[in-house]
């Protein structure tokens, strides 16, 4: 199983149960994976737990190819808490759509 497959698998588990145990597995897996960038997708304001449940992070590799999406919250004893600290080590994608074009252009120019 490739590291990205492993990342996809743990992402599925996180969506089913964003427990501390699964987040711990995620931290280990993401280090070994090709994921380099993250982008947080969110509802406009964060006024309720539901808003946090609907938000997620997309993970990309060094060429901005999409790998997977993961939740950004954890559940501890029924409490819902933000969990972006688990993305430590990844870089903010800023504007991946435009960057993707830039990477593609650079590759075309190199050819």
């Amino acid at each position, binding site marked *: 199983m490739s590291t990205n497959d492993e990342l996809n698998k743990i992402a599925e588990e996180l969506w089913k149960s964003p427990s501390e145990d699964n987040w711990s597995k995620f931290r280990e897996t993401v280090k070994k994976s090709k994921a380099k960038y*993250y982008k*947080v997708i*969110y509802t*406009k*304001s*964060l*006024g*309720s*737990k*539901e*808003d*946090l449940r609907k*938000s997620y992070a997309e993970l990309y590799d060094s060429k901005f190819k999409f790998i997977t999406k993961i939740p*950004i*919250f954890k559940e501890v004893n029924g*409490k*819902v*808490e*933000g*969990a*972006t*600290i*688990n*993305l*430590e*080590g*990844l*870089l*903010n*994608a*800023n*504007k991946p759509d*435009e*960057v993707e074009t*830039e990477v593609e252009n650079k590759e075309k120019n190199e050819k």
Partner: protein
Amino acid sequence: MIKQDLNELESKSIYIIREARNKFKNIAALWSMGKDSTTMLALARKAFLGKIPFPVIHIDNGIDFPETYKFREDLAKKWNLDLIVAKSEIKPELSGFSCCGSNKTEALKEVMSEHNFDALIVSIRRDEHGIRAKERIFSPRDQSFKWDYKNQPEEIWNNYTSSLDKKGHIRVHPLLDWNEIDIWNYIKREKIPINPLYISRNNYRYRSLGCTHCTVPIKSNAKNVNEIIKELETTNIEERSGREQDKEKEYVMEKLRSLGYM
């Protein structure tokens, strides 16, 4: 953007921080890991010869940028900070104007009460937002954190109020007179570490930092502090243009602050 004398600004801020430490029994500082509060910590280190003699509080809503958490851990270790992380839980009954509203203020209330803090150093600047321009350097808050901005003590000849309602607290604002460009010039002069999100990558950078849900990057090619300063010397765009709570109805920031928000 008007540049001011850094030595004068530094001297006044150090005076304010020392006054606050002297006048209050139990003081703490808020740290968001942004440029302003990190500059304030650098000033506090200078004021007390390298060791900040009060706790530093991060109100953590769990959705800050991962880079921000890393910066927090690294600098807290490097500067030997007495760091208190106050977790703010998302509570539906507290849903406010945004994630910065009641949830963060509630977490701040809890940590202030738990540690009995009577004063809190906050790194706001007058030039950031109209409502912040109304602030005093020593600004009283009542028991429920409310700020009566229509009835504030005068501050003549650097005499600041230290009298407070028994269960209230005083907000101390040592950076009130600084501009954004002063902060960056001081960061450059003092070589203060900065959150990497301020530096351009892929043609974008963050100019004002909040959490992942309320901040967007601006187009910029500034790859170091010198380039950020150059960019600011010519820009006409407002500093907090990438912050959601500032884009909502005009009175939102005023209401947030009057209810205790930073």
